[in-house]
């Protein structure tokens, strides 16, 4: 049994803490059951179930700290992992940045667990694959897809009496549909906490449509273009930007949020005023645990408000050192948008490129957050408000900071990779070279 109830998790954690002889001890317990089915060439290639239960124990003697892990839960093993972390801690030099564990906290309520997902069984997964593969076979297309569903929990407790528990479920689905001759390719990806919202046939139809429409792609000249980015196209750039919102690195002068001459860019307007980006564990469409794994409380934090940098996440040591509040690393994000739809954005575009998805995004320059990557699986030229023809994929070199200063319009946000992101229309997006890849 890997999904433990709150009582069962607490019982194990209390036992672990009972063995502790250190000044401070903190234990994290995570368990999950994850099922998956993968298909390619219109047939199932692999399917499996992975169950996992792991315990991580951190012990400290003053500022000497170390960590040990285990996956067995008989009493002897629980005691062993505590002793191991203590032995290792005693060997560690003092870490002046060590921060003692937190006392008990009050957490917000977040609902991330749905029976519909927890009840997924092999028959469900086979049906998801069939709902993709069937239509593809009929249309002489080739499906390659993947479904992963998880039910699990995270729990923690420490020697100051903190205890936290959070169960959750998740479904991740993607399918790439290609034409038999390999000249067309379309893609769709969806993620949910509640499997009742998921419909493989409905979603696969999107990829099928793009595969068919992407054949006979024409090359256009690389250069700066107005783009309409579907959520799967912008998400990589937005998330990468959020990974660079660290207060300490900004204060140290080594981030795009560092200021010339010292200091950071809190309070500065760095983006278009339509950009508001925040995190909140309780958002119904993208719920996450209301605590970080050191027990810090997660609550609504606004990172960018009307284009102004409002907050950065900040580790506890740096916060204490600078007498500012600590802000835990976020687990979800919301980028606000408008009321229009993706179709509205296309209809309002005289000349531009519709991008379904971006791929292989890597940092080129952390100073300006310049990233490179490519378009993939459904790239189309827009003329006078309509999709005119498919185009060859292209490599881009662009910065989300520059991108979010070149906003033409934002539509209604949708869930993508645990984040709410609006389809967006951006001008002067830099495509730097052509790719022959389909």
């Amino acid at each position, binding site marked *: 049994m890997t999904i433990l109830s709150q009582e069962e998790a607490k019982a194990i954690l209390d036992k672990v803490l009972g063995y502790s002889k250190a000044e401070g001890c903190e234990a994290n317990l995570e368990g999950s059951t994850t099922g*998956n089915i993968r298909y*390619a*060439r219109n*047939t*199932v290639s*692999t399917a499996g179930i992975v*169950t*996992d*239960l*792991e315990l*991580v124990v*951190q012990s400290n003697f003053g500022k000497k700290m170390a*960590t040990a*892990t*285990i*996956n067995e839960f008989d009493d002897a093993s629980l005691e062993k*992992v505590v002793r*191991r972390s203590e032995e*290792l801690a005693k*060997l*560690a*030099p003092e870490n002046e*940045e060590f921060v003692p564990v937190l006392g008990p906290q009050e957490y917000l309520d977040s609902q991330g667990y749905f029976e519909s997902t927890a009840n997924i069984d*092999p028959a469900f997964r086979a049906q998801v694959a069939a709902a993709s593969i069937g239509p593809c076979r009929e249309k002489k297309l*080739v499906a*390659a897809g*993947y479904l992963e569903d998880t039910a699990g929990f995270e729990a923690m407790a420490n020697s100051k009496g903190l205890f936290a528990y959070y169960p959750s479920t998740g479904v991740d689905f993607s*399918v*790439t549909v*290609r034409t038999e001759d390999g000249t067309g390719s379309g893609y769709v990806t969806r993620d949910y906490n509640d499997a009742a919202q998921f419909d493989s046939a409905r979603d696969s139809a999107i990829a099928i449509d793009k595969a068919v429409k992407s054949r006979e792609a024409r090359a256009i000249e690389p250069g700066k273009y107005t783009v309409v980015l579907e959520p799967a196209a912008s998400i990589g750039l937005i998330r990468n930007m959020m990974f660079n919102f660290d207060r300490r690195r900004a204060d140290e*002068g*080594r981030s*795009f949020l*560092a*200021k*010339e*001459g010292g200091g950071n860019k809190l309070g500065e307007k760095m983006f278009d005023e339509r950009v508001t980006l925040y995190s909140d564990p309780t958002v119904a469409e993208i719920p996450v645990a209301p605590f970080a*794994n*050191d027990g810090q409380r997660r609550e609504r934090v606004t990172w960018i408000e009307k284009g102004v940098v409002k907050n950065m996440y900040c580790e506890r040591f740096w916060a204490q050192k600078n007498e500012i509040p600590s802000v835990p*690393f976020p687990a979800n994000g919301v980028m606000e948008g408008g009321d229009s739809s993706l179709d509205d954005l296309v209809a309002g575009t005289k000349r531009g490129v519709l991008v379904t998805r971006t*791929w*292989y995004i*890597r*940092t*080129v*320059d*952390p*100073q*300006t957050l*310049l990233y*490179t990557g*490519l378009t*993939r699986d459904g790239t189309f030229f827009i003329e006078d408000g309509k999709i005119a023809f498919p185009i060859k*994929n292209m490599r881009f*070199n662009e910065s989300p900071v*520059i991108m979010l200063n070149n906003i033409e319009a934002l539509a209604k946000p949708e869930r993508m990779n645990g984040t709410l992101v609006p389809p967006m229309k951006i001008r002067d997006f830099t495509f730097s*070279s052509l*790719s*022959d*890849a389909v």
Partner: protein
Amino acid sequence: MDRREFLRLSGIGVGALAVPVFGRPRTLYGATTPIPSADKKILADAALNAARAKGASYADVRIGRYLNQFVVTREDKVQNLVNTESYGAGVRVIADGTWGFSAASHVDKDSIARAAERAVAIAKANAKIQSDPVQLAPTKGVGEVSWRTPIEKNPFEVPISEKVDLLLDVNAAAIEAGASFVNSIFFQVNEQKYFASTDGSYIDQDVHRFWPTFSVTVVDPESGKFRSRDALSSPVGLGWEYVNASPDGKVLGMVNPATGQPRITTRYGSRYDMKEDAIFAAQQARESLGAKSVEPGKYDLVLDPSHLWLTIHESVGHPLELDRVLGYEANYAGTSFATLDKWESKKFNYGSDKVNLVADKTQPGSLGAVAFDDEGVACKEWDLVKDGVLVNYQAIRDQAHILGEKESHGCCYADSWSSVQFQRMPNVSLRPGKQELSVEEMIKDVEKGIFIVGDGSFSIDQQRYNFQFGGQVFYEIKDGEVTGMLRDVAYQSNTQEFWNSCVAICDKRDYRLGGSYFDGKGQPGQISAVSHGSSTTRFNGINVINTERKL
């Protein structure tokens, strides 16, 4: 520091991927001695017999103990010490012509037999929708054998204090040489893998890998500019001896007689001088702040093995994975331009006639070297591209027949006892030049070029055509002379054009391995460690872009 956060090595600039904690971690700190083979044979036989009893025509079992240790520091602080262990068994079977797999985290006769039975049940269930029965290339049973990575000293046996002292010493040297910040880490891996199969093999392997690395950042507060330079070490199939610096294990930088400074930094082969490299890193990061920003255009590129390994990995290693060519990875990293018809023609010029690319899981000191792969096939070497022509792919037992071959190439791997083994990239290397040619001689012949050391950003499309690569240190070559450092360099090319622009390769004296712990493939994803060897190589007329932007 947050326990999970430290695992995200991207925070210290050593790569874009997070460090995984394998399967179900479990500690036995200090107890690094492998479990006796005889004990594992009893367990393995329980699995194999159970599988056969339920109707499997083939079965294999991997009893694996995976140990990691991380020592993580920044400047003068040790941020964390972690030991992880993961122990369990995975059973793979063929029943009714179909694969089935199941794993057990309890390793006793009962649990492992039940895992075998579950695997057969899964195979039989999947057989109902199977249209293509498995065709397994035969492989000889080898009886009871064992192998260990030929390391000199096991890093797990080196006292923590010695490791901490070395890293803090490296950090201090970097700071003294002008670094504003430095993160350094030791990442040790030990896979104790016992493989047994109904072919009659009982193979016990003790695999070791080691990766010492750092990232140095220099900040210029007035201009608000910062630069990083990462370590020029590689992850290696060596032990602690890798960090015992020695003159034989390195390629000295070319020194400017006027300043005494390297015009091209020292590069490392079989031994790594971490402290020296950290000092150079600090100096070079600082120098690059004021270096000339590259003029975009076409250049002849001279690529050091510490850089070229990644270009080989992305533009040769991946496109030649046979399952990728067939479409099995279409939903993740994509397919390949190197389709079967190109191989069948025997005339596809993957590269110029100077280019010979070879696959292997045997090079000493490499990450891929083992005696047998994860389906019991003896490892070997084979050509992928010969005299520029595409001649082969990477295939395992159930794929060999597609190429008309009688045996697997021996490149099957699973990253945990709980994950199923599949085709993974072996070491893929560029053979050194047959004629004598030194790096100095190569440079003398270049009129307008850039010498690139170390790997940086890397991005390639979903069929492996269009790529763009950065690096760690860039030097301008003008009329046969290295004239100074450049910044803001990246090059962009198309795989076939690029390899056909290869005009010269230094000889075997310069040959060195680079590599990665984190090659990713599959859904659910698995990682694999892989090395790529080469000598310094010249490519003509490659498009170089300038990556500087103003916000």
